[in-house]
């Protein structure tokens, strides 16, 4: 029996690098033995990606991507298609879960210096994935063609319109029409279903290849490759399969407990996962009282709204400046590997300034998120402006304080 398997695998291996890759990436790939729960989010992200793709494909079988039919087709899915409602809720909850996991996954990266040399490329691919995820979420949100789909899309598209000189033409070109319409919906459908997912799959593959090339990190920031046993396996490491694959399974179980609790008992997420105005079909003659993005864009939306001033002598309106700073808040993440000049990787061993910086950054991100879901008033705008500052400062000043602060001695072994 095993003889037969061996010769089959031999046949296969001569034609396709099966065993070689299984060993390189799974059964002989060393990963740190001791990590904490922050390290599970990568695996969970892959799971939720699969959930989104599969539920998305199924939704596509019943969805109508025209202005006339889109909204009704969603109700068709909710009522007439067997288990259509489950697919819809899994997809909408999945979108929020995707961002929740993404933010925690990146926070792990910031905490434990996962972006430091030689993992800068892993981080860059990851930031690109964040950008693609944000695009994917925006495109997907327009598809149900509800009031919020329409009006939030209008807001974002008008940001492109705010770019000097080329803005208005660019906006018309993106829309495919003088106003946001069915033409926009159809192309957003193609982008959401094919283009962005394919790019994301490619980037996930690159992200993991880049990671496996240099090896995963750990909360201590210890280099496990330095001390190996006779067989070449790091003393503080263990093969990915079966130790990490099996340890991921209970985490996936817990994730699904929470995920399905939301799907079955609170799919609207208190109005944060499925926003109330979106249960009304898009009406271009009627603007909703508050146009708010979904919660996962709220921090960045907050930053956008906080910029209430322009640079008049440069001809930059407050709207355009807001767009620039909003884009910068995402772009600055890409360059973190080069902002961090610390000798140590992990926050556990960095100095007091890094710790304060991290707290301020995280707290301002969360506060900005909260503010982004609420309508503006003077006080809120002021707090948002302060928080925007506290978002950027820890990053902008990072090259200075990480270089000069006093760090702790990193241990040799885990």
């Amino acid at each position, binding site marked *: 029996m095993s003889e037969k398997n061996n010769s089959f695998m031999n046949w296969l291996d001569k034609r396709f690098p099966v065993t070689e890759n299984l060993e390189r990436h799974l059964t002989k790939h060393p990963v740190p033995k001791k990590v904490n729960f922050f390290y599970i989010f990568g695996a969970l992200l892959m799971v939720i990606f699969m959930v989104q793709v599969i539920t998305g494909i199924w939704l596509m*079988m019943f969805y109508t991507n025209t202005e006339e039919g889109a909204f009704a087709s969603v109700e068709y899915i909710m009522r007439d298609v067997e288990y259509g409602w489950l697919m819809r809720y899994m997809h909408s909850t999945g979108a929020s879960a995707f961002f929740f996991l993404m933010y925690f996954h990146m926070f792990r990266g910031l905490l434990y210096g996962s972006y430091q040399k030689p993992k800068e490329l892993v981080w860059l691919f990851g930031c690109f994935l964040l950008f693609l995820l944000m695009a994917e979420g925006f495109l997907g949100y327009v598809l149900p063609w509800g009031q919020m789909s329409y009006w939030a899309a209008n807001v974002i598209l008008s940001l492109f319109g705010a770019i000097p000189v080329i803005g208005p033409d660019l906006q018309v070109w993106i829309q495919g029409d003088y106003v946001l319409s069915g033409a926009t919906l159809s192309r957003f459908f193609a982008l959401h279903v094919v283009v962005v997912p394919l790019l994301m799959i490619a980037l996930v593959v690159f992200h993991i290849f880049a990671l496996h090339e240099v090896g995963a990190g750990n909360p201590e920031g210890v280099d496990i490759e330095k001390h190996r046993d006779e067989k070449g396996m790091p003393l503080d490491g263990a093969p990915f399969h079966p130790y990490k694959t099996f340890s991921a399974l209970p985490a996936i179980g817990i994730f699904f407990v929470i995920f399905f609790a939301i799907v079955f008992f609170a799919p609207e997420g208190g109005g944060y996962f499925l926003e109330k105005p979106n249960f009304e079909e898009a009406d271009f003659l009627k603007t909703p009282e508050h146009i708010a993005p979904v919660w996962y864009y709220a921090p960045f939306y907050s930053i956008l709204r906080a910029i209430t001033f322009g640079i008049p002598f440069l001809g930059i309106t407050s709207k355009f400046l807001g767009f620039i700073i909003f884009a910068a808040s995402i772009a600055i993440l890409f360059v973190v590997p080069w902002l961090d000049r610390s000798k140590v990787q992990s926050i556990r061993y960095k100095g007091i300034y890094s710790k304060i910086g991290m707290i301020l950054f995280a707290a301002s991100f969360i506060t900005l998120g909260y503010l982004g879901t609420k309508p503006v008033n003077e006080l809120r705008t002021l707090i948002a402006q302060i928080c925007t500052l506290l978002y950027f400062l820890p990053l902008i000043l990072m090259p200075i304080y990480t270089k000069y602060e006093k760090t702790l001695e990193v241990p040799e072994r885990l």
Partner: protein
Amino acid sequence: MSKKIDQNRRRALHITSGVVGAVTVAGFAVPFLSAWNPSEKAKALGASVKFDLSKLEAGAMAVLEWRRTPIFVVHQTTAAIQNLPKLDAKVTNPAKEEGITRSDNSKFTVLKGVCTHLSCAPKYHPEIEPKAWDQEWLGGFFCPCHGSKFDLAGRVYKGVPAPTNLEVPPHSFDGDVLTVGEAA
């Protein structure tokens, strides 16, 4: 470093987790596979169709639509009923067990108006007179596409391209009301 591995415990855990894993996959599969079943919209469009027979004169044929298929409802004349057994030898499958009208009703025949050759719609020719395709025509259907002939009960003649009798759709009679398709 070297601990005794309890193989029995491992095997038990492998089996248990394997079963749980298989149930999880099956559990995920059920909604997705079920979603492919006809939706309420399909069921609504494919629902049974009712027809009032009291308005249909003897010798006349009504054409209904059921599941995008034309349905022929023929009110057989007395002459037609008498003529049909005479054609038993001329048809490929006399289908005596289906009765003369091939339905539960001695006066009405219900057929799918789809030629069993290549799905054209056969034309209704109830007149008893010589025809270009049959000098001894006793009434029936002639398919203009490739010349298949059927009698008034939809039975296919020998020696024509169509292989089988015109199909009888599921139907039921309730007094003067004909229901094509399963009753809801």
